[in-house]
């Protein structure tokens, strides 16, 4: 596993200004966890550059998006906890 500089936790819809702010501050060794309405970024085909993209399984299922998760790793709450500890820093958008 590569180094993980910043873990971005993104819960906003893709139309929310903070979604774009998050993308603008993504680094090459960063990862994103899409949670809550943030998982709609999978449907809106947002570009996440080279960042690793995770999405919270329960939120993906709730929004009927379980079929749209090609390049995305689904994680449960436990794996999300692990990611927050792997990262050097965590930011909740």
């Amino acid at each position: 596993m590569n180094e993980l500089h910043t873990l971005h936790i993104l819960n906003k819809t893709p139309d929310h200004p903070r979604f774009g702010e998050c993308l603008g501050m993504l680094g090459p060794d960063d990862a994103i966890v899409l949670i809550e309405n943030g998982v709609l970024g999978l449907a809106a085909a947002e570009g996440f550059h080279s960042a690793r993209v995770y999405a919270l399984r329960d939120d993906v299922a709730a929004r009927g998006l379980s079929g749209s998760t090609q390049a995305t790793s689904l994680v449960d709450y436990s794996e999300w906890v692990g990611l927050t500890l792997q990262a050097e820093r965590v930011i909740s958008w």
Partner: protein
Amino acid sequence: MNNLDPHSFTLVITGAPYSTQAPQTALSFAKAAIAAGHAIDRVFLYGDGIHLASALVTPPSDEPHWPKNWATFLEEHEVPGVACIASALRRGLVDDKEQKRYELDASNLRAPFTIAGLGEWVEGNIKSSRTLYFHGDR
């Protein structure tokens, strides 16, 4: 940092229940952290998040009772739950002490939540391995 070693978290909730998903997401995260052997140092309610500590929230009986579910979790794991006093007073959440001080007709803080200043957040931030924020969508 090895994530198998036990770590500790401060969780900050800024989204209100029945208005945002933040209290549900934060509780699921907290339970997963405990299950993995980590500790929750404290939960700090800020901004609209203070409504999670209301004793008067009464959702329909077929919906989860987030203030009650959170209170149960805090008691079970002996985790302090603190609502920011400045956020709370502006939004109408008071304990018995504030009720007396401001001569109000009632108090509405749900045990085991307490009311205190931002210093609690600063302290949690210093002591915990990680501080995580749970905001609303807008």
